[in-house]
């Protein structure tokens, strides 16, 4: 069989693979919609990483992920985890649709601990709204394994038995304070679509 026969097939396959790849992109100030589920207003230019289907989440950053990460997750169902591991012996923290406010914060912080954050500690939990829906907002502290201290804030709601979440954390020194107002504005503007 002539090799010319395969050439168009290879080209088509390569094209299909290339178009299936989603790349890192810029999020300009203005409306940002995650997964047709959460809408927010961003005031700065963020960098967006591709959505992870396994954990139904997407990460945004300004200075690079280790220096500040905003995570969106929507429609997480009961029994699903916010994180992923290839270690099949590990049992991950999972979301439950009957979780009370304190348990929602616990679920998020345990997921962060599982991912390697150390000394995670809830510093404030208060009632909030996610658009018209009831939600909780909480702040927390933690540290990386090498001792760098982190601060974070999150807004979480359970709507139609699924979890909606926005989470931001960054090194306490300089970076958290640098973007705190922007993040608070984003959380204030959040609504379920």
């Amino acid at each position, binding site marked *: 069989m002539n090799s010319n026969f395969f050439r168009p097939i290879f080209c088509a396959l390569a094209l299909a693979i290339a178009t299936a790849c989603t790349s890192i992109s810029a999020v300009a100030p203005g409306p940002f919609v995650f997964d047709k589920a959460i809408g927010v207003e961003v005031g700065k230019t963020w960098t967006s990483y591709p959505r992870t289907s396994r954990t139904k989440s997407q990460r945004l950053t300004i200075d690079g992920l280790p220096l500040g990460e905003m995570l969106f997750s929507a429609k997480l169902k009961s029994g699903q985890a916010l994180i992923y591991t290839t270690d*099949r*012996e*590990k*049992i*991950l*923290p999972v979301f*439950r649709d*009957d979780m*009370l*406010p*304190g*348990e929602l*914060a616990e679920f998020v912080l*345990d997921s962060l*601990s*599982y991912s390697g954050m*150390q*000394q995670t500690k*809830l*510093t*404030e*939990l*208060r*009632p909030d709204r996610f658009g018209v829906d009831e939600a*909780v907002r909480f702040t927390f502290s933690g*540290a*990386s*394994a*090498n*001792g*760098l201290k982190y601060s974070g804030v999150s807004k979480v709601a359970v709507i139609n038995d699924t979890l909606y979440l926005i989470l931001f954390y960054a090194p306490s020194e300089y970076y958290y304070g640098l973007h705190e107002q922007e993040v608070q504005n984003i959380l204030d503007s959040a609504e379920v679509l």
Partner: protein
Amino acid sequence: MRTLLKLCCGVGALALASCASTDVAPIETGASPDVTTDEAGLWQQMDKYEQALRTSALLERDPALNAYVRGIVCDVAGTDYCEDLRIYVVNRPYFNATMAPNGLMEVWTGLLLRAENEAQLAFVLGHEFTHYKNRHSLKNWRKAKNAANASLLVSIGAAAAGAGGASELGSLLALSALYGYGRDLEREADMEGFAYVTAAGYDGSQAAVLWQNLVAEVQASQSKRKKRRFARSSIFSSHPLTKERIATLQGLAADLSPGKRNEQDYIGATAPFLAQWLDDDLVRRDFGENLFLINKLIERGDMLGTLFYAKAEALRLRRGEGDMVKAEAAYLKATKFSDAPAKAWRALGDALRRKGDTSGAITAYQIYLELNPAAVDRLVVENFIKTHALEG
């Protein structure tokens, strides 16, 4: 063909000549390796690791706990060697301790949570000290290098003989020999560690008890994969099978008279950390193991407020059939003991709220806020009280 044979012989001779001896004498006190040696390279790597560990958020820095663990290490290793060892208590909820060739010893809090007395902890520390004293890291490193050389030799030989596929077999054999050697070093560490511990006057029978407890805990695990891995050995296992280790240690202890266990000293030294270590253990989400461990600690009969709270937390997080009812009962029980954390009342309030007992929940929440006026979740709790008190 003759040229090829010559080439193979040449490579073989080179590989054999580069074989390093694994027959090394125990390290002497105060000794450090010559900078030109492979051992110095290993030390240097671990010096770098240790430098990072000193600033790590994982480190437990409590001076009393560190001094206590160090005291047991010195008891077992002797005062001369003790000066060469640096002990770090690391906040990791897994049963483990590690020893580096440069004298860096890590003791994980998961081990401290699981040991029942000083004698059990002393055995693990004695085992780790043997790795240091007998320079097991160096032996393992040299064995690995020799195995890699042998594997290369087999690959070249196989390729020259036109049997390239056999080279994979050579690699596998070299690898299995390496793991087998590692298991032999672990056996040596068990035997000599046991000797150090009993020489220091500790009860040798506790070494096997520690392993028996671990076997029972893993059998209670929710992970079938973990249970399988723990029960079966393979040529690639890094440690001997636990049942083999138990039999060996029981044999060693059989003819010895009982020594000290220092159970109360151990409980006293670890008590301030029990609540935190149980919290950390729950993050693992292996509720079978979590509950096994908590129930075992409850049998001890003290710190019951802390322990029943931890039990209730494990049941609540597991959410199996009937778990929420059992959790509520355990929260209630926890609140009867003076060492119960204030958050046991908040959790009891949550349990009552979940089943629709609003007035009971409000009462529990009010006690929680009285006990913990600076509660980080005060606004959420007060919001519930305000909303539902108005409804009432």
